[in-house]
């Protein structure tokens, strides 16, 4: 288990099944935010959930349905063209204020998953701090889901502030852990839509602490994690979410905003993943680097994929190599030290790369907050 392909409005089941066949992905996720519930018979529109799952399953792809209720608490959401088709609410959409409404929402989410014949993955609320009225509601949702199905996967979704909330985060996670579900899906949600994602060392530390604790109790998937999830993998996560669009590689408010002037989700896949940088650069930057220093470019594991499909495959291969390099190490301290070394090397490589021109991102973006958070985690563990 290394990667799951997250959902995107772009319908590319062939890419997913090829990734699974190649051993580069273990599963895929569909959500009500990117896949229709009803058949539309509109040319070019993505098939509805049941049909899509049928196609994927026929190709041997394990599928999860993530209700992503936590999107509803993001500021500025507007792209709910598919979401409103789903029968996920007994009362008003997003109303989790009473126990009865929470129970109803949990039941309806599980019913949709039963109808789609996929594993149960509970809904949750977006959290901004570890302990609040919202965290109590999130715990209540989790309790109800675990009562309905003890093997349910429980989600934890929060902003960087939530993940940085120290002992309050630990306490909330402790309460969730006491439910002892079948596994975990954790998400760091970003207010800004950037790549690499904007985060803090404290948030990465919180993510690592949490994953380290939960991984002892069940498998942990880092939803929409991509490269940013590597510290969590070092802490014990077994898989990370990724894809060909930016909205599959990170979870940010802007990904769910109203669409302006078409889809607007196709630009990210042109960036080229570079293993030695633990990050990506633009195609122009890749071309310049390959021309000026082909030896360095090759040593960093660079490539110049000619089209979106090969760009995605290259990205996935790089991510799987990085994740696999950590997950093959059973000892948590070994995993931690391997990623520390990887980040140290990548920081030096960004310096080398910077000598060949001005790049749009740097080690300060791709490495520093993650390496700093990882160091805090290591210190907590006494390493």
């Amino acid at each position, binding site marked *: 288990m290394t990667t799951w392909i997250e959902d995107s409005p772009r319908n590319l089941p062939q890419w997913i099944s090829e990734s699974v066949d190649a051993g580069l992905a273990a599963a895929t996720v569909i959500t009500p935010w990117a896949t229709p519930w009803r058949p539309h018979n509109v040319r070019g529109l993505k098939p509805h959930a049941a049909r899509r799952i049928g196609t994927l399953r026929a190709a041997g792809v394990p599928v999860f349905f993530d209700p992503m209720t936590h999107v509803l608490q993001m500021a500025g959401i507007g792209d709910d063209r598919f979401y409103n088709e789903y029968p996920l609410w007994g009362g008003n959409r997003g109303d989790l204020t009473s126990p009865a409404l929470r129970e109803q929402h949990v039941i309806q989410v599980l019913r949709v998953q039963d109808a789609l014949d996929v594993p149960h993955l509970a809904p949750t609320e977006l959290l901004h701090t*570890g*302990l*609040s*009225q919202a*965290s*109590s509601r*999130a*715990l209540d949702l989790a309790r109800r889901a675990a009562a309905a199905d003890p093997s349910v996967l429980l989600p934890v979704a929060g902003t960087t502030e939530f993940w940085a909330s120290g*002992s*309050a985060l*630990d*306490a*909330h*996670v*402790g*309460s*969730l*852990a*006491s439910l*002892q579900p079948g596994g975990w899906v954790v998400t760091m949600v970003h207010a800004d839509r950037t790549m690499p994602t904007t985060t803090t060392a404290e948030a990465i530390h919180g993510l690592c*602490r*949490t994953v*380290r*604790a*939960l991984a*002892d*109790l069940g498998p942990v998937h880092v939803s929409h994690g991509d490269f940013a999830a590597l510290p969590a993998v070092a802490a014990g996560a077994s898989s990370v979410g990724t894809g060909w669009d930016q909205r599959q590689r990170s979870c940010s408010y802007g990904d769910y905003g109203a669409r302006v002037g078409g889809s607007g989700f196709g630009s990210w896949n042109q960036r080229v993943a570079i293993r030695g940088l633990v990050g990506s650069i633009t195609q122009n930057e890749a071309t310049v680097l390959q021309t000026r220093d082909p030896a360095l470019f090759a040593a960093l594991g660079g490539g110049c994929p000619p089209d979106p499909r090969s760009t995605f495959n290259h990205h996935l291969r790089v991510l799987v190599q990085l994740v696999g390099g950590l997950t093959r190490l059973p000892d948590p301290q070994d995993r931690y030290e391997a990623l520390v070394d990887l980040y140290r090397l990548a920081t030096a490589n960004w310096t080398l790369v910077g000598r060949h021109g001005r790049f749009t991102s740097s080690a300060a973006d791709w490495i520093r907050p993650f390496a700093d958070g990882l160091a805090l985690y290591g210190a907590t563990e006494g390493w």
Partner: protein
Amino acid sequence: MAKIKEVRTFRYLVLGRGRLLAVAGSELIERAAELLGVTDVGPIGAVGGQKAVRRVRTDAGDAVMKVIAVTSATSASLVRVGREVEWLKSRSNPHVVRVISELAVIGDPAVGAGWLEELLDGVDLGTRLGPRWAWSETRALIQDVASGLAEAHRSGIVHRDLSPNNVRCLLSGRFKIMDFGFARYMLEPGVTAFGQQPGTAGYLSPEHLNAFSGVPMPASDVFCLGILAYQALTGEPPIPFLGDVDEYIGRVRSVEVSQDIGNARPDLTREQHTLIRRMLHPQPARRFIDAGRLLDGLAGMA
């Protein structure tokens, strides 16, 4: 739940800032004994707090009657208390004190409540702490208390106030948990002074300081049992209360253990050190997540 008419006269302790704390005085004790159909023989232990502990005579022999004065109980908390009393009454776990009556709620609105428990021999754990225990005896303490807690945790019940005065050392050499958390729902919150949740100074988990989704959970009971085990092994609680509430809360929140068990008891094995450290881990999810898991961890140890 049995009820009688409201008792109009009961005593108060005057707390700081003019707050009043109800005392389980003679009127309430008398009413509780009447409701429960027992004869009061006299006090067991200290007299004058919010809870009275009395030796009583029943048709089946001597028992313990506990009476608490209530000033802030809500109907929801009374329902919860009643449910937990029912749960304890239906159990015969050798490591949990047996409740032998219904919960008797005094007054409407409630001004007190009482119930009967089996009379235990032996002494409270608190009287035995001080000298350093051998691992074998500490292991028995962990084993017995965890066995009692495990059944509660499986039923969704958290003790919330495991302290030396709530564990009994029986003449047989075994241990029994007393005073499950049900009574704490009804106690005046300000009595604790340490935060949102009831508990005993020197024996709080970090979760005792929390509200919302972070309140005491099964792993908090594991932490508190870790405190007792640490104190049995070293003679001192790991996060002692030194008289300053704010300073103490700071150390509890950051789980500032005064001396690592490895340094305090270098004669123990690495495995034994690891067990105690894990019980006292700052992250609840990194501890044994409940007493059942603790028993699993203990099973493979000498």
